[in-house]
């Protein structure tokens, strides 16, 4: 085994958790918003991929990565809107529609993205927080993408907003008890549609991060279930935006730890490492749920928890 420089390892792990965790952050924040309003959107996987492809394509064609992010958000918004409107119709099961949306989103992304597998798009900028260091690895570890900071800010905004603003209260009420919301004059369906659309936009941005920064390339294997994982992540974080932030970093670390360990010579059971976040979520769910109370903190109107 090579000299295990502990500080390097920890630093690499931290950098890795931020790198791998940023898409989780965006998608989970979006899903958090959606689920807080009482709807579940499993189609995020498809929206993520569609956002990744459209972001990459627009960035290629326009030469600007940020325009790509905007396009990805737009595509995510549209698909989220589709999901929101469809699930507002009577008798449409939101879990089933979400899965159908995965198929549609992925199909569209792969179809239209064939032309963009080869070209290289401009990448999103990152902040060189480690410029003070002379060690290349420290500098690159602290080379954090701008979107990560946007995501962190978003988590705080959502946290504050859900707690202290009128729209936050309205959203929570619609998600917990639609009848009361209606009695107060709010329109639950409309609120949910908007929340789902915004959730989709955020997921699209998460996808754009994958293709425009890390791994920074468009191909058909880009997503490995991150969209679906984000749904589990939101439950793991009990629908709290700040907890989503920590959970994203945790899941990011779980994704980064396998290669990091192998780089220092520990390489066995890497499949099991990959499954660690799922097992962890399951264990936490099992340990914290109680029969009858289901998941504490769950929005009352969420079809998952009824």
């Amino acid at each position: 085994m090579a000299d295990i420089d502990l500080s390097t390892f920890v630093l690499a792990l931290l950098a890795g958790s931020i790198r791998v965790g940023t898409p989780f952050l965006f998608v989970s924040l979006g899903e958090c918003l959606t689920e807080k309003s009482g709807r579940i959107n499993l189609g995020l996987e498809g929206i993520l991929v569609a956002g990744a492809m459209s972001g990459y394509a627009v960035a290629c064609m326009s030469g600007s990565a940020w325009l790509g992010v905007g396009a990805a958000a737009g595509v995510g918004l549209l698909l989220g809107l589709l999901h929101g409107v469809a699930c507002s119709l009577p008798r449409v099961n939101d879990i089933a529609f979400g899965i159908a949306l995965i198929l549609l989103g992925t199909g569209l992304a792969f179809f239209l993205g064939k032309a963009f597998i080869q070209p290289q798009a401009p990448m999103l900028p990152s902040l060189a927080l480690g410029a003070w260091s002379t060690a290349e690895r420290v500098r690159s570890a602290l080379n954090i993408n701008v979107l990560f900071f946007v995501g962190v800010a978003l988590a705080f905004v959502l946290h504050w907003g859900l707690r202290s603003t009128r729209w936050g209260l309205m959203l929570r009420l619609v998600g917990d008890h639609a009848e009361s919301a209606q009695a107060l004059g709010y329109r639950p369906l409309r609120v949910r549609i908007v929340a789902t659309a915004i959730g989709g936009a955020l997921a699209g941005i998460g996808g754009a991060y994958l293709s425009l920064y890390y791994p920074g390339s468009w191909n058909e294997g880009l997503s490995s279930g991150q969209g679906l994982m984000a749904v589990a992540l939101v439950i793991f974080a009990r629908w709290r935006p700040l907890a989503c932030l920590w959970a994203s970093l945790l899941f990011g670390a779980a994704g980064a730890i396998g290669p990091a360990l192998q780089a220092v010579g520990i390489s066995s059971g890497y499949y099991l490492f990959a499954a660690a976040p799922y097992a962890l979520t399951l264990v936490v769910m099992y340990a914290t749920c109680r029969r009858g109370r289901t998941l504490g903190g769950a929005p009352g109107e969420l079809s998952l928890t009824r």
Partner: protein
Amino acid sequence: MNASRTLRRLAGALLPGLPTLLAVLSSCVLFVLFLAVQGKPAWQALQLVGEGAFGSWFALENTLQRSAPLMLTALCVALPARAGLIIIGGEGALVLGGLAAAVTPLALPHLAPWLMLGCMGIAAMLTGALWIGLSGWMRQRRGVNETISSLLLSYIALALFRQLVEGPLRDPASLNKPSTRPLDDAYLIGTISDSFEVHWGLVAGVIACVLAYVLVRHSVKGFALAVVGGNVRAALMIGLPVDRLILLSCLLGGAAAGLAGMFEVTAVQGSANAALIAGYGTSGILVAFAARHHPLAIIACAVLLGGLEASGGLLQRRLGLPDATTLILEGLLFTNLLLWEALGGRLAAWRLKLAQPPVTLEKGALQHG
């Protein structure tokens, strides 16, 4: 008048199928529009889909072969759905079931083929049942949401499968394609006949769906499941063993998925390896929801999906369209199928209207109070 009454009766009978028909039509229209807008030969594409799915005996075989595993994995969703659960972890049950079937001959002494296949089937079904049953058990014991837990268990199952196939259960001779030890030729399942080149998994799928139908629609247990699925409180009130019924539905669903895995291993692959992870579980979810969890409709929907998959090759080779075209068509079809469900509520009203004979007032009838 007799003609108008039969017409109304006919319309009333066909009405339940209206959302499906509209969905198919609208997805075809959207598909054609999508391709036409890009300057691709849209109309030919649609024709090729029909041709590739059902246009020749070979196409039919192709379609049926691909739909065989989907019937079983759809049952994995439909049976628990009867009891009110939404399970989406069929993929995990399938691969673990396939693995169990592949390693059973290693654990048992040499047996007659029929016997060994039976044991493999039982092993596969038990493993699948246990895996999905775990989701159901966690739900009943602790209220853990079964959709999420079955999804997580599916991911864990895939990781476990890969670890085992490339590690302890690996056949040392399977050098560049890690697999379990290949099955003896005697234990492989062949095609139904030389002129019908589809393996017996299709028959198993159809039989399983028919059995499920009988269970669900015509048995007391099935009715009990429906009560549990419809209103748990009512079920509890009348004293039904809710926990056990829910667990039963999960066990049966998991067994179906495990059986699908066994057929994949014995009839297609010959051993358990990474090629077993082919998305059959996910497709099964779609088939189940499209069929509204009705076991007989699952057969039709599975064939439909198999047909779409089968036609993909023609689209690639004849028109140079990318393989993702099939994905788009499937996505359009299933989103439309689910969307037109919204009509369902109106259907009941329309049906009533059609069933009533038209009121013909005689002249002056109203004036008589």
